[in-house]
């Protein structure tokens, strides 16, 4: 699951990502861990996927987001 350790964007330009299928613009370079912080999500409250690939909690800080990345956050729900 570690093949998604993205490299940081070279310039501090705005990032246009897709978060849970909704467009989101970030002011500059951002890791997955920083994104959760900006969203006010506790690290242990969600599981993360980047471009369809699971990103473990301990890999989020090294996972840099790039424009057009698709981020999914999952949380617990009842189920059958």
């Amino acid at each position, binding site marked *: 699951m570690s093949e998604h350790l993205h490299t940081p964007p070279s310039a501090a330009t705005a990032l246009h990502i897709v978060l*849970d*299928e909704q467009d989101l613009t970030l002011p500059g370079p951002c890791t997955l861990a920083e994104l959760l912080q900006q969203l006010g999500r506790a690290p242990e409250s*969600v*599981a993360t*996927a980047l471009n369809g690939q*699971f990103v473990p909690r301990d890999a989020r800080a090294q996972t840099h987001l790039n424009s057009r990345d698709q981020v999914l956050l999952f*949380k617990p729900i*009842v*189920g*059958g």
Partner: protein
Amino acid sequence: MTDLLLIDGVALSSRFFIGSAGYPSPQTLVDSLKASEAQVLTVGLKRSLQAGDNGFVAQALVHAREQGAHLLPNTAGCRSAREAIQLAHMARELYGTRWIKLEVVGDEHTLQPDPFELLAAATQLVNDGFTVFPYCTEDLILCRRLLDDAGCAVLMPWGAPIGSGQGLLHLQALRTLRQRLPEAVLIIDAGLGLPSHAAQAMELGFDAVLLNSAVSQARDPVLMAAAFRDAVRAGRSACLAGPMAPQEFAVASTPVSGHPMLLG
């Protein structure tokens, strides 16, 4: 008599696995879980930006923690092995368990499992250290390959399509499955609507049943949870007791020989 179900080193005294979805209120959910005395509770995952669930899952998790129930997260909604594998990894991280109810659906109308994607996902997840509970059909060859090739510890053949409440639709195939895989842990999952369906599954020798809608959609879910609890116990006892063999003709149960003839 001690009659425990052993799964992945866990000894379960209840053979009734219950789902946590669709209850009319969080309190009814908790009361139903208590009445069921189930020790395995299924849960799920959803996108975090979708609307909240009004505290349902939080209540379920508190109950599980207090009662020592085991969580069984599912991969509901997955249509491919790849999706299911990714979701299983997320479930393991979120819920802190390696148990996963593996669902890979191949048909939108029946929600029938896709056997090819299911086998591929199960194989990978077992390799990744999961204890996989695959939701499958009663097809003997698929079940055998899930056990032998993928290495699943448990199989969960359907009784009928999810949420349909039709009971055991393919009775002969289920009997054959039980007979051909005598050592496998087989749990009937999905399609049960009545306690008698659950009792029937247990009488046939299945090791446990998993259901959700039959309880959550009942007019009184708490009472229905208790009814299923009792039915599962009754069916299991009947299986252990050894049912009589059916006879084609009447066989008098009262020993009349030697009785005086009152007529003639």
